[in-house]
Structure formats: structure tokens, C-alpha cells
């Protein structure tokens, strides 16, 4: 069966972003960009399913600027077979991303579609669910374990009170949580090989999707600064401050 994995180019998770002075967004010039950490976990899971003989081909898709090629190549170095870059410099919102992915999933005949649970830039946590809705298939969000058995997939999900296991018929959409796996590092020979793997370039219009939306960012501001704290020297002083100054105990 075929696996489709969606990856997003985002600011590296270690970077502390700064809001632009004109409040139009965050400053991304000269900032290190990486594959969204949850998407890396999705790629890893697809590769493991391939190694287990469940999946025969892994197609990785990214929607974004030309530079998102780097993230697709990165996914190929981990084991993905082919890439599709849907190139646009527009901000593409989750519903439009889901519409493009739907067209690709159908064209490719993907059986298992893996995405990260959320991108660490917009923190939306929507695309996988929207894609499942548009494809009219089952969804398993926040996956911490995936087992394919015949025509079904059993997914253990991280929910607020603990864990929940669901069974979905294939095709299905799965979004990854942190504890699904630990992604491998790309080895140098695999990075070289990845450069030769096929990478198709497309535009949103090729799938009949417009990036226009009814969501508008009015402004972006820094979060409220916290007042500088104090260092306390002893447990007694801490207890006293909590009781008499902060009055929280």
C-alpha cells in the first residue's frame, strides 16, 4: 500500500522568534528553518511501516516556498521515495492545505496518510482532521502507536485523561504525537541518494485550489511581559513570600 506524508517547513523549534516592530508578523529573516518536528515523526512512522513490509511506497508532500524542497529532500534522506512540492509564497491556511492534499491523496491512491498533529508555527492542529473530513475517511489524531492489520489500522491516541485505541478502516488519516517514535538521523550516503530521488513541482492551481481565505491577521503582538522576579535565599523566605506577598497558599 501507498503512504502519503505531509511535511511543513517551519522555524526551527529552538529559535525564539521575535515579533516585527510593525506588528505584521514575526521576523523570519535569517532564521533557521526545519521540518516541523511532528512531521518528522510522521515520516519516520511511514519508513517503519515500509521496513515492516506494510507500505510499498512513500510519497512526501510539502506546500510552501521553493525552499521547502530542503524539507522534502530531508524526508527522502530518511526513506521517503518521491516528493511533491506544491509551490506558493502565500500563507496557505489548513482548509486550503487539506484541499490540496485531498487532490494528491486521491490522485496517488494513498491508503495511509500521515501528518503531524500540529505545526509549531501556527499551532493550529487542524489539517489532518480537515483532510479526513474532505476525503470522508476515518481519522486518528494524536497517535502514539500505529498497527496495520489487514484492511484496518489500530491507533492508540493520546487523550486528556490517558490513552484511547480506535480501529479505522483504510484509507485513513493519522496525525502523529510526540511519543509515536523517535525519528532517525539521516546518514550521509542517504542524503546523497535523496538528491537523485524524483521531486515533482506543482502549484496550488494545478489542483484547482485557491489560497484565498476569509481569515485575516489583523496584527501580531508580543505576549505580555512578566514582571521581573526575585531570587529567594531559603525555603523559609519562599514560604513567607508565597503566604504574605503573593498570598497564593
Amino acid at each position, binding site marked *: 500500500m501507498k503512504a502519503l506524508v505531509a511535511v511543513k517547513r517551519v522555524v526551527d523549534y*529552538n529559535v525564539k*522568534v521575535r515579533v516585527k516592530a510593525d506588528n505584521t508578523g*514575526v521576523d523570519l529573516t535569517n532564521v533557521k528553518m526545519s521540518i516541523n518536528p511532528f512531521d518528522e515523526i510522521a515520516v519516520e512512522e511511514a519508513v517503519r511501516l515500509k521496513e515492516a513490509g506494510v507500505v510499498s511506497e512513500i510519497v512526501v508532500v510539502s506546500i510552501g516556498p521553493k525552499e521547502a524542497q530542503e524539507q522534502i529532500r530531508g524526508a527522502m534522506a530518511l526513506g521517503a521515495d518521491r516528493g511533491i512540492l506544491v509551490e506558493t509564497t502565500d500563507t496557505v*491556511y*489548513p*482548509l*486550503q492545505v487539506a484541499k490540496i492534499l485531498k487532490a494528491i491523496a486521491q490522485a496517488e491512491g494513498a491508503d495511509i496518510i500521515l501528518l503531524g498533529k500540529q505545526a*509549531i*508555527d501556527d*499551532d*493550529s*492542529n487542524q*489539517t489532518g*482532521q*480537515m*483532510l*479526513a*473530513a474532505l476525503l*470522508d*475517511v*476515518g*481519522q486518528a*489524531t494524536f497517535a*502514539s502507536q500505529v498497527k496495520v492489520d489487514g484492511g484496518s489500522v*489500530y491507533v492508540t491516541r*493520546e*487523550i*486528556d*485523561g*490517558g*490513552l*484511547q485505541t*480506535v*480501529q*479505522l478502516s483504510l484509507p*485513513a488519516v493519522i496525525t502523529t*504525537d*510526540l*511519543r509515536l517514535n523517535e525519528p532517525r538521523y539521516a546518514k550521509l550516503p542517504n542524503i546523497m541518494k535523496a538528491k537523485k530521488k524524483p521531486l515533482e513541482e506543482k502549484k496550488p492551481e494545478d489542483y484547482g485550489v485557491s489560497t484565498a481565505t*476569509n*481569515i*485575516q491577521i*489583523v*496584527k501580531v*503582538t*508580543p*505576549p505580555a511581559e*512578566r514582571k521581573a*522576579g*526575585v*531570587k*529567594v*535565599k531559603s*525555603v523559609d523566605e*519562599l*514560604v513567607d513570600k*508565597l503566604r504574605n506577598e*503573593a498570598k*497564593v*497558599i
Partner: protein
Amino acid sequence: MAILVYAEHDNKELKKATLNTVTAASKIGGDIVVLVAGFGCEGVAEQAAKVAGVSKVLCASNPAFEHQLAENVAKLVVSLAGDYSHIIAPATTTGKNLLPRVAALLDVNMLTDVIAVIDAETFERPIYAGNAIATVKNTESKKVITVRTTAFDAAPAEGGAASIEQVSVGEDADAGKSKFVREELAKSDRPELTAAEIVVSGGRALGSGENFTKYIEPLADKLGAAMGASRAAVDAGYVPNDLQVGQTGKIVAPNLYIAAGISGAIQHLAGMKDSKVIVAINNDPEAPISQVADYFLEGDIFTVLPELTSKL
């Protein structure tokens, strides 16, 4: 204009997250209708009817909704959506699982984790792990949003007298895409992490699960606090992952947050920096947690925590 609030519950009890969501709905303005979807959830509907500010409760009880599988419940919500300008749910794992599916079926974009309502179509939400706050205008025909419960006070659980209406559901309630297999819920007598007034969290420095039991639990019990953890502590297997506080775990904003042996990575701060008072106990005075802590005590957690517990 009417607002549909999706209730968080476990078929027995209405969860507090619903009360925070009702408050967010009241800031939008309009009749507030609460949807209780589940199985054998009539008691929950009665609790929802008593919440101040609620004008009507819809109760949809069907085996297909028992575990609130998104495939089934999204169909139900969409079938009811015609009457509402806004559909909102708490940004819990249930709400986050369900609402994007609803939004896509309605062909609208949506907003996750709203922290403030400016007007009926303008909202604030954090992006980049809370390092920026976006003010967003949503002019979709239907506004679908999930709200961060810690950003809104709970509506009074008593004082309302809403009518309850049963929603009749056809035989096709089960979309046939998914099946519930099993659930393993963590048992705890402590307050729920996201709703607790005080949270005591431990990090990698605890070194083991036994040390959580020995050092963090007694302090949490003494304070009547919930227990939390950093991702490092969860990944190391010291505590179950539903205790993780951070960008990808729970978002908390208690009156008092005690971070013991937690360095304070960006992703952890995203989950707790709206706490009223933050205490950090760490042997590294340069740890990033010191920048957000109101009170920082430099010291060894293994001596400080027992001393603190005994002096409270």
C-alpha cells in the same frame, strides 16, 4: 445570532472546560445553546441546563456518540449547524479532534485555542508556542473556534434554567469509519491538571519515577495541587504523558505553578507562563525558567522539596 457550544463530558459529568467555554460564548453575544452528545448522557444535559447563561441544551444520546468519535459526532454537529453563527468547543483533545472536521465539512477555516474575544468575528490566539499573539478576523459564514479554557473564567454551574431538547438521530448516526476499541485512563485523586489552582511540576532532574512519588507527590498533596511534568520527564517514562505541560501537552494557568528541576525550554514555558505566580527551584541560576519565575530558589531539589513540604 446563536452560538452552539460543544460540551466536554464523560457521559456522567459535565467537565469544567464547558463552563469556561460558555463564558467565551457569552463574550461573543447571542443565545447560547449547549450540545451534549454521548450515550446515556441525559444527566449531563441536566447539569448543562443549570449553567448560568445557557438558553437551551440539546441532548443527542446514541451508542454511536458514546466515545465521541469525530467521524460520527461531526456529522451530527453539521446537521445542527444551520441555526448557528458560531460553533465553539473547548480546546481539549476532544474539541481539537472534532471541530476541524466540522469546519471542513462546512467548508470554512477555523481558529484554534482562542484566548480572547474582541468581537463576534475578531479573536486573539497565540502562535509560535505563545511567543506571539495574533489578532485574527474571521469572516467565514460560520465561525468555528476552539477556546483555551484557562483564558476564560468558568461560568457559574448553578443558576440557569435552560430547556432540554432531545435530538433525534437517524440510524445512520454511525458513519462506519471508525470503532472504539479501548481506553486506558490514568486514575488520580488529585485535581485535574488544567483546572487546578496550584500545580507542582517536575522535570528531568527528578531522575526517576520513584523520585516523583517521593518528592513531588507529597508537596502536591500538601497543597491540594495537581501534578505536572516537563516533556523530558514524560519521555524518560517517569510519569504518564497526560501530565505533560507545554506547547504540545496541557496548557495550564493556575494561581501558583511550582517548577522543580525544570530548565524552562520554550515549549514548556508555552504551557505555563500565564500562571499567576511561578516558583522555580533549580540548581542552575542561569536556567531559562529564572526569566519567568516570580520567585527563584537556587538549590538542590532533593533537599529543598522535603523542606518545603514540611514547612507548609
